[in-house]
């Protein structure tokens, strides 16, 4: 089966807002969150989408 779309990881500054099976990366500042998301985007070959200022998800399309 080929997975069409999947959340590979979430990057957040507010840990209590994210749960689930995908990896969650907790960051202290917005800058750190952006840096981690940029790295993950390149590593996982997914796209970093912003759901809010505190939460990014890396999605495989």
């Amino acid at each position, binding site marked *: 089966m080929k997975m069409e779309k999947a959340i590979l990881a979430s990057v957040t500054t507010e840990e209590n807002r994210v749960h689930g099976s995908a990896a969650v990366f907790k960051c202290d500042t917005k800058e750190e969150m952006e840096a981690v998301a*940029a790295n993950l985007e390149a590593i996982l070959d997914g796209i970093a989408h912003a759901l809010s200022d505190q939460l990014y998800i890396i999605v495989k399309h």
Partner: protein
Amino acid sequence: MNEYTYPIILGILVGTALRVFMLRTDYRQYPTYLHGKIIHLSLGFIAAALGTIAIPSIMEKEFTAVTFLTLAASQFREVRNMERNTLTEMDSYELVPRGNTYIEGIAVAFESRNYLVIFTSFVVTLCYLALNIWVALGAAVVCFLLSGMLMSGSKLSDIVTVEEKSISFDGAGLYVDNIYIMNIGLPERQEEIMKYGMGFVLTPKEFSVRSTIANLGQRQAILHDVSVTLGVFRDSGTPALVPLIKRDLNDGRIGVFILPQEKDSKRAKEIIEHVPVLENAIQMPSKKGRRNLS
């Protein structure tokens, strides 16, 4: 040498010449290679021979020889498969793929051109044998003109108006004019997109056209043609940098977001206007009578 020699030679020559005429490597770069061209020229030659031979066979009352034409038909269906397979294989390695609809369109064109060659050779030989060489040459010219006409389908500029529109971000959402394209989270990606991206809006000229340009294959063809011609600012590890087309559900307009290496809006507009309207994408809802709908 017998009475059929010259008509057969003329038929084959005209048929092969027609195939050469229809085999132009244009900006879409297919077929690019010499070997690819040789395949098509050889098949064109075979098609011309088949079309030509039919007439003398009938004149000699060898009617069974016409069954050769059925052989030709299955042979050229194979051409379509060959083209489809090659292009599909290659497509997965393109930065911006052609898409299946475009590939199918190209494959069908290759098959049908061989039939045009058969038909031309058939008519030319028939005219030569039944009348004389001058009529045959006249028929050849008519066939060339006809093929030229049949070959050029319509272009996007026939069915839509293309306008350049600005791209903008509303939070993380990327917009072309007021059409939502995608969510780009990272500020550095947003900067790259603002720097390299361009937006166009295609407005349908009439109602029937809406479903044609909404076709995903047609949209992919637009993106592919633009990316091939102007280059594309993306690589295999940067999935966020992807040219996309989205539709405005309210009025059927489509927003084209592209990332050309060469940011030349005039040229980009021209290229979009010259994208072929894919046969398989054309739908004609307005042809359905309204009387049964009440």
